[in-house]
């Protein structure tokens, strides 16, 4: 109570009118960062202590300090493999999201197609990467980037398609009547009303898809194919009992996933300025 009052008071007291909003907002971002950082640091400390004091074998769980050290030593490899996995994830994400969006636009245009496509898309979404990756790997050459990117695209398709379709089909009845009163039809209505109204839904799908894309790109490598990404390093380090190193690459994958998620979030804010107000 006193803490929050102390944090806000000087700003408000100094000038209760004009610049408070921006100052408060800036302070708010910093303040909002404090609790998660504190929890994260506390968690790492507890982890470290548990491993050190509990004499946990490194193959069960290495200490964060050991993982950090390994991460630092292998940072160039993490960076290189991370870039490779990131590229696969990005290309797969773009292809899958675009396909999902186009399919949703087509499905939304025809009532029957919309009804039928949801279960089909759900079935596609339930396809496990584990089942797909080895098959796709066999379909292409071992030097090909295509299988992993295809896995990503397939995984990404579902959330984008389902969310976009929902957004495209939910047109405000008033907007529909207004457009009718303007004698607007077809593509004009799609462009001016359906698509912008669906954007929040599309971005919800895209946010889910961005994390999935990284997971898919990394995990797809566990099942053969070209071995230049994070996934292959995780499996080979684990196979060589180099557990802290395996964990270092896991951290790399974690960071990559976070970058994708934040990028999707930033894009969302950029694309919908009216939602920031």
């Amino acid at each position, binding site marked *: 109570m006193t803490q929050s009052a102390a944090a806000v008071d000087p700003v408000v007291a100094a000038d209760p009118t004009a610049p408070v909003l921006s100052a408060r907002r800036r302070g708010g971002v910093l303040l909002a960062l404090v609790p998660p950082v504190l929890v994260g640091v506390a968690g790492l400390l507890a982890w470290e202590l548990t491993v050190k004091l509990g004499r946990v074998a490194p193959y069960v769980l290495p200490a964060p300090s050991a993982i950090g050290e390994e991460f630092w030593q292998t940072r160039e490899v993490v960076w290189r493999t991370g870039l490779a996995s990131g590229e696969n994830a990005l290309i797969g994400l773009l292809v899958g999201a675009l396909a999902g969006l186009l399919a949703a636009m087509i499905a939304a245009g025809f009532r029957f197609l919309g009804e039928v496509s949801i279960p089909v898309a759900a079935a596609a979404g339930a396809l496990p990467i584990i089942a797909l990756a080895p098959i796709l790997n066999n379909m292409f050459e071992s030097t090909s980037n295509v299988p992993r990117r295809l896995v990503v695209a397939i995984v990404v398709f579902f959330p984008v398609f389902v969310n976009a379709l929902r957004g495209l089909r939910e047109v405000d009845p*008033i907007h529909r*009547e207004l457009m009718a*009163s*303007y004698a607007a039809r077809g593509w004009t209505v799609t462009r001016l009303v359906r698509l*912008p109204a669906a*954007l929040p839904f599309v971005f919800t799908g895209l946010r889910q898809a961005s994390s999935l894309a990284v997971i898919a790109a990394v995990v797809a490598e566990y099942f053969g194919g070209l071995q230049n990404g994070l996934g292959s390093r995780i499996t080979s380090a684990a196979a060589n009992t180099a557990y802290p190193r395996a964990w270092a690459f896991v951290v790399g994958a974690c960071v990559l996933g976070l970058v994708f998620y934040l990028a999707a979030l930033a894009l969302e804010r950029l694309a919908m300025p*009216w*939602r920031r*107000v």
Partner: protein
Amino acid sequence: MTAVAPITAVAPMTAVALAGVTKVFNAGRADEVTALTNVDLTVERGEFVSLIGPSGCGKSTLLRLVGDLTQPTAGTVTVAGKPAKQARIDQEYGIAFQQAGLFDWRTVQRNVELPLELRGSSRSERQARAREMLDLVGLTEFAGHYPAQLSGGMQQRVAIARALAVHPPLLLMDEPFGALDEMTRERLQDELLRICASTGTSAVFVTHSIPEAVYLSDRVVVMSARPGRITEIVPIDLGERGEATRQSAGFFAGITKVRRALRSGGAVPVGSPS
């Protein structure tokens, strides 16, 4: 008496003419509903007509028929001397609903510009007209805001500005002030009357409020439900409206007349025989 002048020939002075209009929803099915039966109504150019009646009396349906947002089962709807569909395609009317129905992703200015954009007006013309309309509803300084930044009353004013943007000869309004507080409501009523008077716009205005109907209208069309029909048309003659009007004896007399008509509506159907 409700008997409206028989529609012999649609004079250019007639903004809206409904002749023998019947609307049946879900015809031939178990849930068949007769929303309107045998409605005759004319609205002269520059006239302000309110539709009032209990829920389900078909007043919103009547408005939608005029706007060609739904089509009559029988009878004809003529707007600005042409069939309702042609009038809609020619954008002969502007429309506003109880919800402002603004497009969240467009600024206030661009919301008002939309109907002009769809008419193919040039950019400069659009901008000039939108500014003029925003001036009219007193929201010039909010042109660059998004709808989410405005209060409900301000959003409703934007919706009215949008409805007026194409300078329509006819304004269709479905309880546009229904969701507003009394103060805002009265101010917008005055603004609306001022706008209609200065531009010579005709209006068909659906409302639940007897005082609102009396204050705004040249004629109040009283309807009753099951089946929806016109039971009486109450002429109102209050002259120039103003703050004093709301306290005047004539205003209260009008309210009494409309209330009586609403009361008797269910018991004594006065629908004009065709």
